[in-house]
């Protein structure tokens, strides 16, 4: 009996010793395979890559269908045919919304926080990318969380700021970004900068081009004199500083690769959802009317001609007898296969020229049609040059061969009366594949002239908010309808 008790006590003592040394045994809740604080050089590419991808994904499809650069096909069960009929629901927005806020912006915020003090060149680049995100997303969604956004745990329900106020903040953010990239910096972006490869001069030029794009938005059908004055002041200052995009090589864009899952998302969609996303009849007809030789690289031939799909009836009149997008958006064509490496273009030299053309063509702007015409022609020339980026010799010759005639014709020359329409239609063509901006141009100018798809009587002027945002953030404003003017410049 006595011996047994000893054994028990010994056994228990052993067990207790085991317990006291168990601290180490249970101190293992730190994931050995994931990082908690990676270098900015690892985070910046994630933010840029996601932005580049996003701008060729959902938000491009929604806005390019609504502004009739593309038209959807494939029957009623193909989601794009629903978008094409303006049925973009809150739930359809979830993916792009989360990618942008909890993805791109959250990562940019991490870069800024980590580098602002010691490596401001990183912070500056992140600020400029953030400025672009807000510019495009305010145009698409109107009021957004800005001042309280991306507060992580500290603020899970950020308030929404007015679209006009965000624009003002973005102007300041661009200035801040440009100032930061000029500062001395311990570390500086290089190849990890997927947009400009660490070229700070190009980032500054982009910052100014972005401001130009924003200022031109103040010119709107019913814009006020104050709006025009604000834009005029801003643009005058930018022109005076003379630090803008100089060529297509300065384009703000995300280059893609030809390897699997690294091709551009517009091209990938064509592979995974074939026969659902065709160039719109509206766009193709505008180019057909001008015998625009960019069609050679923009579209494939259908029969011996270029045929666009009609918007809004791809759910019932199912067909594949249309031109498809070609090398300009899908990359080099070889043995019937596209390489998929074409960039997602986000702000181009061609657009910058058309912005300036519009500014000078406007009587309440630069009021100088001659200068406007110079920019107009420069924009067309830049777009033609860009159009052959992935063309083979034959195609390049076909595109370029049409430039001189085009410039010399009334299509390439501005005249009093319809200058604005010409500029915006030209921009509509050269911004093929650019998300949001063509729709913004239509909303503020009414060009190109579009007919709503049946049975709708109007074209949407705003995207719905994300269902998740609205469900989990009580500060989300009510959104009565996508047909109501909602962005401050949409007057």
């Amino acid at each position: 009996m006595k011996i047994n008790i000893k054994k028990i006590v010994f056994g228990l003592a052993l067990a207790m010793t085991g317990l006291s040394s168990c601290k180490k045994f249970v101190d293992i809740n730190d994931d050995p395979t994931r990082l908690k604080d990676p270098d900015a050089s690892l985070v910046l590419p994630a933010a840029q890559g996601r932005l580049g991808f996003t701008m060729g994904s959902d938000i491009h499809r929604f806005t390019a269908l609504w502004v009739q650069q593309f038209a959807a096909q494939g029957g009623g069960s193909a989601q794009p045919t629903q978008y094409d009929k303006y049925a973009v629901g809150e739930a359809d927005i979830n993916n792009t919304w989360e990618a942008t806020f909890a993805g791109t912006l959250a990562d940019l915020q991490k870069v800024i926080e980590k580098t602002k003090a010691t490596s401001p060149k990183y912070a500056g680049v992140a600020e400029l990318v953030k400025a672009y995100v807000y510019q495009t997303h305010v145009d698409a969604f109107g009021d957004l969380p800005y001042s309280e956004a991306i507060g992580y745990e500290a603020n899970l329900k950020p308030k929404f700021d007015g679209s006009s106020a965000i624009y003002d903040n973005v102007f300041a953010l661009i200035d801040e970004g440009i100032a930061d990239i000029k500062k001395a910096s311990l570390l500086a972006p290089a190849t990890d900068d997927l947009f400009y490869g660490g070229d700070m001069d190009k980032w500054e030029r982009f910052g100014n081009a972005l401001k130009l794009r924003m200022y031109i938005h103040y010119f709107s059908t019913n814009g006020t004199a104050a709006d025009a004055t604000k834009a005029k002041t801003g643009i005058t200052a930018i022109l005076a500083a003379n630090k803008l995009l100089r060529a297509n090589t300065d384009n703000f864009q995300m280059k893609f690769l030809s390897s699997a899952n690294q091709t551009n998302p517009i091209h990938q969609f064509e592979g995974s959802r074939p026969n659902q996303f065709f160039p719109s009849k509206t766009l193709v007809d505008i180019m057909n009317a001008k015998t625009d030789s960019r069609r050679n690289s923009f579209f494939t031939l259908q029969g011996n001609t270029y045929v666009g799909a009609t918007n809004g009836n791809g759910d019932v009149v199912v067909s594949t007898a249309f031109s498809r997008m070609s090398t300009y958006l899908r990359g080099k064509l070889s043995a019937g296969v596209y390489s998929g490496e074409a960039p997602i273009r986000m702000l181009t030299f061609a657009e910058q020229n058309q912005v300036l053309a519009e500014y000078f063509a406007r009587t309440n702007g630069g009021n100088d049609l001659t200068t406007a015409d110079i920019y107009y022609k420069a924009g067309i020339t830049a777009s033609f040059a860009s159009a052959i980026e992935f063309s083979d010799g034959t195609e390049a010759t076909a595109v370029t061969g049409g430039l001189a005639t085009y410039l010399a014709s009334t299509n390439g020359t501005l005249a009093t009366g319809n200058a604005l329409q010409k500029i915006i239609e030209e921009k509509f063509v050269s911004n093929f594949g650019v998300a949001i901006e063509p729709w913004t141009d239509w909303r503020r100018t009414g060009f190109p002239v579009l007919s709503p798809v049946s049975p709708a009587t109007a074209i949407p002027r705003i995207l719905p908010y994300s269902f998740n945002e609205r469900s989990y953030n009580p500060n989300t404003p009510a959104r009565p309808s996508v047909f109501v003017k909602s962005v401050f410049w949409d007057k």
Partner: protein
Amino acid sequence: MKKLLQSLFILLFIATSAIAQDRTITGTVTAQEDGLPLPGVSVRIKGASNSGVSTNAAGKFSIKVSADAKVLIFSSVGYSMREIAIRGSVVNASLETDSKSLSEVVVTALGQKREAKSLGYAATTVKNSDLTAGRSTNVVNALAGKVAGVKILSTGGATGASSNINIRQATTFTGSNQPLWVLDGIPIDNGGGDQSVNTGSTNSNRGIDLNQDDIESVTILKGPAAAVLYGSRAVAGAVIVTTKKGSKGQAGRVELSSNYNYIEVNRLPDYQNEYSQGTNGVYDPFSQMSWGAKITGQALPNYLGNLETLTAYPDNVKDIFKGGYNLQNNVTFSGGTEKTAYYFNYGNFKESGYIDNNTLAKNNFTVNASTQLSKNLTISSSIQYIHNNSVGTPVGNARSNPLFDGMTLPRTYNLANYPFETAAGLNNIPTSRVPNAGYTYYNILGTDNPLWSIKYVLYKQKIDRAIGNVGLDYKIADWLSANYKIGIDQYTNVSKTINEKSSNNNQSASRAGSIIDNTTNRREVSSYFNLVANKRFLKDFGARFLLGNEINYRRTDQLQVTGNGIQAAHNYNISNTLTYVPLQTIREQSLVGVYADISLDYKSFAYLSFTGRRDVSSTFAPDKRSYFYPKIDASFIATEAFPELKQNDILTYLKIRANYAKVGREAPIYSTGTYFGTAGPSDGFGPNLIFPFNGVNGQTFSNAAGNINIKPEFTASREVGLEAKLLKDRLSIDIAYYSTKSTDIIFSVPSAPSSGFSSTLLNAGTLKAHGIELLISGTPIKSTNFNWDLSVNFTKGRNEVVELAPGVPFIGNGGFTNPQGRIVTGYQYGTLFGQVFKKLNGKDVVDANGRLSSGQINTTELQPIGDPNPKWTGGVNTTFSYKGLSLSLFADIRYGGDIYSRTITDLRRYGVAAETGNRDRLYMHNAVYADGTPNNTLITAEQYYGDLYSSAAQEYAVFDGSWIRLREATLSYRIPGKLLNKLSFIKGINVGLTGRNLLMYAPNFPHLDPENNLLGVGNGQGIEYNGQPQTRTYGGFLKLSF
């Protein structure tokens, strides 16, 4: 802890002295069934406190008894207990096998064998014969319907399909509601049965690795009270699997068994065979619809450009399903000596499913042995080695799922009539509506030819698994023993996913193909040290004390390479791809528990037991990781307290039980922090972007925030139960009512993405559940040669989502954007939400054309469209036996439980279902116009079905999944011993026929068997999405023993 130790020592010292013994009784115990001696039968003196003796290999025993001893009690697992009066010095006993005998002694948590009557909680045991009755490939399916309170839902009819097991309703929101699995005292992994909705093939739950023929019994410990000793991991209950063992002293025995089953689809849709492929009454060779021309033998060009005479093919879908089979063989050696016992089994299993390239092959080696090293020390060990090799084809919402439109093939399209691959063995899917002789399928929307993906898009998996344990039992004193057990469950899962070049799914961007090579290593080590004291004192009191410690360690190492862009087709070497995405994960967690259990009884009719357990879990921050929880349970056997209750021979046993328990649940691993991960932007349509990109890597901050302050979630449960045996044990009743309440539920609370996080891990939310369980079993007819046994079980359980988190109206628990299972305050757990049509006074609103077009869908807010939880479930098990012949039938009933069926949606929308064949008339939606006036616009059948079953609005595609099915049937014949006399080396032959799912009646569910679940073992239920239909199997078996 200190207090517990003190009480232990107090207990140790109140030992009482042994009773005087003065004469010896001897005897032999035999089995009534075959007259063979029974070793290992416990023989004790009625009323005495000591444990008695056991019979030896020859069934003989010798016991010393005191002068006043009157009755001996004989008991053995598997046999009815018998009391025999002592007359003279020899007492022989013949024991009867007892179908209900396992209820007498129950293997409870930590392998503790307890008398059923002492338990204050519910534990139900299913024995081997019930597990192997209807021959299911997955042991989980063998439990379906057999245990009240346990819901089993099979994922579908694919070979290796997983099966969801849920005990007494969900107790947590997004964590696992699957019970802990324990094999011979050691926790094992039953993970792996989750299904992703958009990618992948059938995933088996790892319980499928077990060989049913190896299993002696499965005990279900229902809920926290029963499983509290297993701690945090058994909040959802525990499945205690006990394998077969040899018996000490049993002569060597060899058994051979073999069974074969044929597999077929149990229900296929009814099709129309009058109208061709096409739309608007016009033949269209590229359409997936069958709204084309009436078939009159007209000749038209098909998608290859050839002239084709339109013909209906009534069996074109049926032909995809070839008959399958499974075959299992076992050879067993078992036996023992005076001091040792051994059991060895080799099991070989092979199944080939009803679709080609769906196979599963298993080899199981089991060795169980124990030996008595010295008078007081016994060592035992059980070891299993399993090799499982399987192949599957894609499932779910993927265009390479052969049933994505395989169940809805156009009525004039016969797969066998056309090439399904190019000369190079690739898919060539129409890119335009211009006929082309090179196409390998008709579908313009990009779906792979089903025959092609069955042949080339495969998921191959090899499991090498070893489960083993070694245990030491040391009898310190008559009343005190210590035992230690250490065990391991270790497996390596090597899989290869082949998305062949030209396949169209989310893992094959731009049809470039991909290969995913994955190696996962999982290891779980568990150690238990227990001290058990058993003592009677103060004459009428008994005490049982358990003190123990558990140490558990789990580690999973995963190494995966995804290679995108297959270069040379049909070469599945990963280096034959262009870009690589590597992935490494290490998941390591540990848990240390200390527990104590004190059980007291008074005169063996009143029992009271207290358990306390403290866990230290690695998943929490240091200040939160240690937590305590208690259990108390009581049982009272009224018939023993008041023997007069038994006087009239109506009531023989009446027990009342009650318990309260609270168990803490661990947090998800690594959730105390927020990490970065490799960026991989994607959208819902397949396009994605992989890093490293252009030579740089990308790290993105997780959208899901961790939380350093997370603390354990607790589930408290209460239960009362009543057990009664009536009419000389011919009838028994077991009723239980339980309720659970989970608080501080740990889940990722959705947050506004504009905060930078789309979710944040919090302790929030309260979930309640309650239910009743009823088991009635009896023997209506009992005679010398003929017996009829009948048992009925009934389960009804409900959840109540009390609250989520402030400002959070719902969380999703599986499915799509719509339909989606949701957890919503005030609704049943996992209620299905989907898009519905706009309503006016409860009626659908049609547009001006009388159509429920896309504009008529209420897209602002998803609406509840169904409750996937059955209102009640039940099982009826009946056995007729006449001499050696026995017929067992088992019916499984489910009442209620809604299911959204994508297959039925497609069958109707595409115009292939029989009911869509009535096209000579016009239809009208039962609806109103926007102004409220009744709809009177007539539309075509195509418009009608197209509107109601558009994939965008789901409200009419939800069906009541009630069923009654003959789940299992077994007819067996045991050849009587006397016929075998001439073949003296054969001791027994048992032959029979078995069937599974032989009959199924689902009155409200058209076309398919409702038992189908897109999400597998996940918490979401009620969505069928182009799933592989359920099977019917039938075959025979032969068992020989030597």
